[in-house]
C-alpha cells in the first residue's frame, strides 16, 4: 500500500509527461506537478533527514512552509540547496538530490545521533566541550577540535563555488494597490480595486492563482471554485491597469509601504528565454496594500508525529484535489477542529479509505458526524493519537481516550492500521508581513491564534489572514478591502454565492498530547516538547529565549508551523496564558530569498567603471591599468620585459630629463560661480582666494569642521565670478557635498552655484625641462613663454584646432603644465601633444611615476591627508590664514591637535639601499623577535631615480625635531628591518627653482 496518482481529477496536465531525476533515479510526472507531488505520486514517502537526529522525514505540507522535504537542485556545477520539494515545479531535465545524509537518504550514518537521545537535548553544547583548563587542549583548542566534527555533521545542503550563469534582475514598481495572495479574498480585492481604475499588482507565491479555490472542493457562483478563480483571473488578465505576478513571494514589508517581492521567472522552465532572468526582485512602492495571505495549518504535537506518512490535513486535500495524488490508501485523521473533516471527505472522494477520525473534542457537531459518515470514517471523539508505528513509512498508529481537562491520555490504547495520518491543530493566520510592517500581533482566544492588529502602515487585511476562515467571508472582506485600498465607495451589489461544507473555525485549545516518546514541535530542527520544557526548567522562558536556546523556529521554514505550538507548550509550563509568553516579531524575509536576486540591480558588476576620455588610447598603448576608486588610470606604460619598478623609474627619469605626460582627467573639478564665489572660497579654504587675480591659479587647503586636514588642490580664477576648483580624485564627491552643505544649510545667503565639471574636461599634465618647448610647438593662439604664462598662470589657446586651457602648475617639482580640453576632444589633444613631444623625447607616464615624483617633491596626498592629520602635522601651517576665519579655524588649535607627540610628516632615506615598504613602521631600536616601540609609519615609498636612493614619506612622532637623525624601519609582516635617515619631506628641488624656472 502506498501513495499513488488518482485516475482522474487535479489541476495537472495528464497529457504532458515530464521526466526528471531524484537522487539519480529517473521519474516522470505531469505538467503542473511539484517535485513533491510527482514523487508522492510514484510512492515516494522518504524525502529528507532532520537536522540534529537525522530522522527520516516525509512531506508535512504541500507549500512554502515545508520543514522536512528539502532538496538540492542542480544546474550543472551550480547548486541550489535547501529548496522545499513542495515549491519546485518539475520540468524536463530537472535534477534534484536529497541532502544532509550519508551515504544515502535511506541509510544515513548520522542517524546514530538518535541514540544520543536525551544527552543531545536543547542547549547541551553550552554545557560541555569546554575541555581542560590547562595542558595542550586548554583555551579554545578542545572546543575547536570538537567543532570541526560538529560543523560537518550540521548544515543541510552544500553551496558551490561555481558562478551562476543565470541572470537576476531588479525591478522598481509603483502602484496604487498591491494585493498579496490570490485566494478568493485576494482575487476579489484585486478585481474591486482594478474596477475602480487603480493601478493594481497582484502577487501570489504559487504558480496558479486561486489559493484555496484550487483545492477546496467548494463552489462559487455555482461553478467549482477553481473555475471561478480562473474566470476572475481571465478578466483581470485583460486589463491594462493590473499586473499579475504568479510565482511571486512578497517577502519584505519595509518603511513607507515599500515592499520586496521575489518572482521566480524561469525556475520552472528547462531553459529560460534569451535574456530572461531566473529571478526578478520587485521593489514595490504601494500606496496601499491588501494582505490576503491566508493561514497556515498547525501540526499537533504527539509522539511519533514526525514519521513519514504523517501530514497536515489540508496538505493531503491539496495533493488529492490539486495534484491528483493520494498520499495513502488507508488514511486516518487526527484533529482538534472541524477543518479536517473537509479533508476526510475529499480523500474519500478521491478514492482513499478513511479508516478513522480521532477528534480530541468529546462533543462533535451533527454536521461533522455527517461529514464523517460521508467519508465512511469511524469517529473516535475524545480520542488522541499517542503513537505512530512503522520505520521510514507509517504503518499504523495508536489511539487512546483523551481527557481535555488535564491533557492526559487515559484507558487502553487501540491500534489502527493506516499508511497515512493526517493531522490538524488549527490554523495560524499568515500575519508575517503585517508584523514586519511594525504591528504587534494580538492573541485571539477563540481562534487560538495570533491575529493581525490595527495597521501601523497602509494595509488592509482580508480573508483567512484576519481569522475569517470561510470562503464567503473571504470574498466579502476581499472586495471591501480592494475597494477601500483603491479609495472607492462601497456600492451594494451581490456577492458571489458559495457552497461549502460547514465548519466551526474555532479549534479546541489543545496543542500537545503528552505521552511517552519524542513529540516534535519544530520538525526540521528536531525540537521536541521536552526540549521546550527543559528550556522552561532552565529559565529560558521568554519567547526569544525559548527560540534562541532550543533553536525552535530558526530553521529554513522559520517556524511557520511550529511557533504557536511551541509557545503553547511554554505557556502551559509557565501556567500563563499564551499572550503573556509573547510572540516573536516577524522580520524579513517571509520566506528565504535568493542572494542572486538581491544583488540583481548591479547587473553583474558591483560598481560601474569610470573611464577617462583617453582610456582607450592608454589600453592601445600598453598601459597597465590601476583601479582607483571607480576610476581606471594607467599605472605604468611598460615596455616588453620591464618590471613595474623598471617602468616607473624609466618614466620618472625621462620626465625629469626631458618631459613626460600623464592623464589627470580624474581630478575632481568643480565650477564655483556667482558674485559671492570668491568670498565663499575664502571661507572654504584656509588661505585667501579673493585676492587671486583673474587668469591665475592658487594651491589651496581645506580643513574639516573639526580642524583636521580635508583636501587640497588648485583653484583657477577664470573670471571675476567664475572659479574652477580642482580636488583630489578620491575626495571629489566628498568635497562637492561639503560645498553644497555649506551653501544650502549654513550660508544660504551666499550667491554661489557649484557644479561638478569633472567630466567636462580632459586633463593632461605635461612636465619636465622640455615641456614648454613641446607646448610651444603645438599650441596656437597664445604664447606659453614665461611672461605670458608664469608659474600659476592660465592661458587659453588651441591645440590642433581644439580650444584648450593651460595652467602652469606642478606637483612633481618640474616645470609643468596642465592642459584642459573638452572631454570629447581629450584623445585628439593628447595625441597632438604626444606628436609634438616626439622630437623631444616625451614619454607617457602612469600613477607609479606620478607617485614617485610627488614623493621626491614631498607633496602630500591622500596617504598623508588621512583624516587624522592636521595642517601643522603636514607642514602646511603656512597656508593657515590669520586674516580671516575659515572652516576648521576655530577648532584646529585644540590641545590634542597641537600636542608635542603628534605624528609629523618627514622624509626617510634607506641607509641599507634596500627597498622600503608602504605600511612599515618606524622604531628607534630594531627588535626583530619582539617588535615594539613604534614611533610612526611609512605612508608612501619608492625608488627615487632623481636621488638614486630608496626613499619614503612617513608620519613620525615629533618628526620635525628628528630630522637629521637615524631610526629604523620595522616591518615584521614582511621581515624587513633596517636603518633609515630621517630627513625633510622635500627631497627634490626644495627651493622650487626647477618648477619656477
Amino acid at each position, binding site marked *: 500500500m502506498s501513495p499513488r496518482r488518482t485516475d482522474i481529477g487535479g489541476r495537472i496536465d495528464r497529457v504532458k509527461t515530464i521526466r526528471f531525476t531524484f537522487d539519480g533515479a529517473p521519474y516522470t510526472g505531469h505538467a503542473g506537478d511539484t517535485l513533491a507531488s510527482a514523487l508522492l505520486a510514484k510512492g515516494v514517502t522518504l524525502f529528507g533527514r532532520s537536522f540534529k537526529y537525522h530522522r527520516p522525514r516525509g512531506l508535512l505540507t504541500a507549500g512554502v512552509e515545508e520543514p522536512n522535504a528539502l532538496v538540492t537542485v542542480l544546474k550543472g556545477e551550480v547548486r541550489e540547496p535547501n529548496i522545499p520539494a513542495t515549491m519546485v515545479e518539475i520540468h524536463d531535465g530537472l535534477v534534484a538530490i536529497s541532502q544532509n545524509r550519508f551515504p544515502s537518504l535511506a541509510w544515513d550514518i548520522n542517524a546514530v545521533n538518535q541514540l544520543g537521545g536525551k544527552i543531545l537535548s536543547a542547549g547541551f553544547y553550552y554545557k560541555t566541550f569546554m575541555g581542560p583548563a590547562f595542558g595542550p587542549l586548554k583555551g579554545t583548542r578542545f572546543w575547536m577540535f570538537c567543532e570541526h566534527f560538529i560543523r560537518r555533521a550540521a548544515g543541510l545542503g552544500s553551496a558551490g563555488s561555481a558562478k551562476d550563469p543565470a541572470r537576476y534582475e531588479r525591478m522598481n514598481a509603483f502602484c496604487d494597490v498591491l494585493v498579496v495572495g490570490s485566494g478568493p479574498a485576494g482575487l476579489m480585492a484585486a478585481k474591486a480595486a482594478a474596477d475602480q481604475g487603480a493601478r493594481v499588482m497582484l502577487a501570489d507565491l504559487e504558480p496558479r492563482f486561486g489559493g484555496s479555490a484550487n483545492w477546496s472542493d467548494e463552489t462559487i457562483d455555482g461553478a467549482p471554485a477553481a473555475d471561478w478563480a480562473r474566470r476572475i483571473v481571465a478578466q483581470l488578465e485583460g486589463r491594462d491597469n493590473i499586473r499579475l505576478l504568479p510565482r511571486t513571494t512578497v517577502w519584505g514589508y519595509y518603511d513607507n509601504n515599500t515592499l520586496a517581492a521575489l518572482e521566480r521567472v524561469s525556475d520552472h522552465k528547462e531553459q529560460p528565454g*534569451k*535574456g530572461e532572468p531566473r529571478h526578478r526582485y520587485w521593489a514595490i512602492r504601494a500606496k496601499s496594500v491588501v494582505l490576503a495571505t491566508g493561514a497556515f495549518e498547525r501540526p499537533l504535537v504527539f509522539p511519533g508525529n514526525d514519521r513519514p506518512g504523517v501530514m497536515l490535513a489540508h496538505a493531503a486535500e491539496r495533493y488529492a484535489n490539486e495534484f491528483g495524488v493520494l498520499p495513502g490508501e488507508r488514511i486516518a485523521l487526527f484533529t482538534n477542529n472541524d477543518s479536517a473533516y473537509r479533508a476526510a471527505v475529499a480523500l474519500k472522494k478521491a478514492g482513499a479509505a478513511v479508516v478513522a477520525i480521532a477528534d480530541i473534542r468529546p462533543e462533535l457537531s451533527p454536521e461533522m458526524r455527517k461529514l464523517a459518515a460521508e467519508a465512511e470514517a469511524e469517529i473516535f471523539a475524545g480520542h488522541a493519537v499517542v503513537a505512530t508505528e512503522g520505520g521510514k513509512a507509517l504503518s499504523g498508529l495508536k489511539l487512546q481516550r483523551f481527557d481535555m481537562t488535564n491533557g492526559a491520555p487515559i484507558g487502553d490504547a487501540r491500534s489502527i492500521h493506516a499508511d497515512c495520518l493526517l493531522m490538524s491543530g488549527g490554523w495560524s493566520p499568515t500575519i508575517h508581513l503585517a508584523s514586519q510592517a511594525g504591528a504587534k500581533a494580538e492573541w485571539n482566544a477563540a481562534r487560538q491564534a495570533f491575529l493581525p492588529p490595527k495597521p501601523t502602515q497602509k494595509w488592509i487585511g482580508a480573508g483567512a489572514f484576519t481569522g475569517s476562515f470561510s470562503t464567503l467571508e473571504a470574498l466579502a472582506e476581499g472586495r471591501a478591502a480592494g475597494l477601500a485600498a483603491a479609495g472607492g465607495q462601497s456600492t451594494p451589489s451581490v456577492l458571489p454565492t458559495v457552497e461549502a461544507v460547514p465548519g466551526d473555525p474555532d479549534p479546541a485549545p489543545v496543542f500537545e498530547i503528552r505521552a511517552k516518546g519524542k513529540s516534535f514541535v519544530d520538525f526540521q530542527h528536531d525540537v521536541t516538547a521536552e526540549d521546550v520544557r527543559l528550556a522552561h526548567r532552565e529559565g529560558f522562558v521568554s519567547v526569544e529565549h525559548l527560540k534562541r536556546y532550543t533553536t525552535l523556529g530558526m530553521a529554513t521554514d522559520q517556524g511557520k508551523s511550529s511557533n504557536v505550538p511551541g509557545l503553547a507548550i511554554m505557556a502551559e509550563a509557565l501556567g500563563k496564558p499564551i499572550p503573556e509568553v509573547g510572540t516573536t516579531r516577524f522580520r524579513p524575509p517571509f520566506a528565504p530569498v535568493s542572494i542572486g536576486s538581491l544583488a540583481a540591480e548591479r547587473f553583474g558588476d558591483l560598481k*560601474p567603471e569610470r573611464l577617462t576620455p583617453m582610456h582607450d588610447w592608454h589600453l592601445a598603448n600598453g598601459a597597465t591599468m590601476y583601479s582607483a576608486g571607480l576610476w581606471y588610470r594607467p599605472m605604468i606604460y611598460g615596455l616588453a620585459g620591464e618590471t613595474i619598478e623598471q617602468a616607473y623609474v624609466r618614466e620618472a627619469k625621462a620626465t625629469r630629463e626631458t618631459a613626460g605626460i600623464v592623464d589627470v582627467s580624474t581630478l575632481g573639478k568643480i565650477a564655483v*560661480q556667482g558674485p559671492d564665489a570668491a568670498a565663499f572660497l575664502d571661507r572654504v579654504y584656509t588661505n585667501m582666494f579673493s585676492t587671486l587675480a583673474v587668469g591665475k591659479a592658487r594651491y589651496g587647503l581645506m580643513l574639516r569642521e573639526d580642524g583636521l586636514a580635508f583636501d587640497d588642490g588648485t583653484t583657477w580664477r577664470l573670471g571675476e565670478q567664475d572659479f574652477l576648483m580642482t580636488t583630489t580624485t578620491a575626495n571629489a564627491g566628498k568635497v562637492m557635498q561639503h560645498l553644497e552643505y555649506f551653501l544650502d544649510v549654513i550660508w544660504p545667503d551666499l550667491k554661489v552655484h557649484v557644479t561638478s565639471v569633472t567630466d567636462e574636461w580632459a586633463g593632461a599634465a605635461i612636465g619636465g625641462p622640455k615641456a614648454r618647448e613641446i607646448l610651444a610647438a603645438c599650441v596656437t593662439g597664445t604664447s606659453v613663454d614665461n611672461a605670458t604664462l608664469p608659474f600659476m598662470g592660465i592661458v587659453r589657446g588651441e591645440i590642433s584646432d581644439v580650444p584648450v586651457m593651460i595652467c602652469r602648475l606642478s606637483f612633481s617639482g618640474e616645470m609643468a603644465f596642465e592642459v584642459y580640453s573638452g572631454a570629447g576632444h581629450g584623445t585628439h589633444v593628447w595625441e597632438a601633444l604626444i606628436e609634438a613631444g616626439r622630437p623631444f623625447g616625451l614619454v607617457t607616464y602612469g600613477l607609479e611615476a606620478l607617485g614617485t615624483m610627488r614623493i621626491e617633491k614631498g607633496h602630500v596626498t591622500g596617504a598623508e591627508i588621512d583624516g587624522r592629520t592636521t595642517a601643522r602635522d603636514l607642514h602646511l601651517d603656512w597656508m593657515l590664514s590669520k586674516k580671516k576665519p575659515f572652516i576648521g579655524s576655530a577648532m584646529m588649535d585644540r590641545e590634542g591637535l597641537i600636542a608635542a607627540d603628534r605624528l609629523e610628516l618627514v622624509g626617510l632615506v634607506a641607509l641599507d639601499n634596500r627597498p622600503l615598504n608602504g605600511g612599515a613602521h618606524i622604531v628607534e631600536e630594531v627588535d626583530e623577535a619582539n617588535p615594539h616601540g613604534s614611533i610612526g609609519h611609512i605612508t608612501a615609498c619608492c625608488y627615487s631615480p632623481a636621488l638614486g636612493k630608496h626613499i619614503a614619506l612617513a608620519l613620525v612622532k615629533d618628526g620635525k625635531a628628528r630630522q637629521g637623525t637615524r631610526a629604523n624601519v620595522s616591518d615584521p609582516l614582511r621581515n624587513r628591518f633596517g636603518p633609515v635617515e630621517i630627513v625633510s619631506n622635500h627631497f627634490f628641488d626644495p627651493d622650487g627653482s626647477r618648477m619656477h624656472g
Partner: protein
Amino acid sequence: MVERQSPLDPEFHVGSHGNFEHGVEIILTETQPGSIVQLAAWPGEEKKLISAIRTVTGLALPDGAGGGLSDGVKSVFGFAPGKFTVADEAEGLAAAFAKVVTPAIGTITDLSHGRTAIRIAGPKAEWVLAKFFAIDFSLPAFPVGAGRSTAHHDVFAQIQRTGADQFDIYVFRSFARSFWKALCHASEEVGYEVQ
C-alpha cells in the same frame, strides 16, 4: 571642426540584439547634442531665467517642478529648484545664453562634453528603465517633456521624457560606457536595436 569622440565607441554595436526574434521592443541610441548647458537662477530670478530660455531656444517652459519640453532639436527641463538643463543639436548654446543670462539672473555652466545623452525608445522603455531607477515612469506620473534627476548607485542621471515611449538620459561622460553596457544588458530580455 574636430569631431567629438563618443565615450560609447567600443561598445556601440549598431544592429539588433538580445531576444529580438519576435521584434525589437527597445531602440537605443546616442543623441550627441552639440550643446548641453546647465542654467541656474538665483532665488527670485527664476522667471527671468525662464524667459531667457524662451528667448534663446523658443521653448516656453511649463509650470511645475521638473517641467520641460522638447521640439526635437532643442530640449529643456528643470532638474532642481531654479536649475535647468538645456540641450541643442547645434553647438554654441553657452555663448548664446551668455548674452541674455546676466550675472544678476544666474549662472551658465557648459556641460557639452561632460554629459552623454542616451535615448531609449520603444514600448518597453519604461520596463527597462524601471530596472535601474526607483522612480515612477508611468505617463501620468512622468508626463512628456518633464525631467527627473535620479541615480542608479554611483551613476547620476537626468532623464527627460521626449515621447510617450521615449526618454533621453543624460549621464556623466565617464560613467556613460558602463551605463550603456548595463542598459544593453537590461534590454536583452525584450530585444533591442542600436541605431
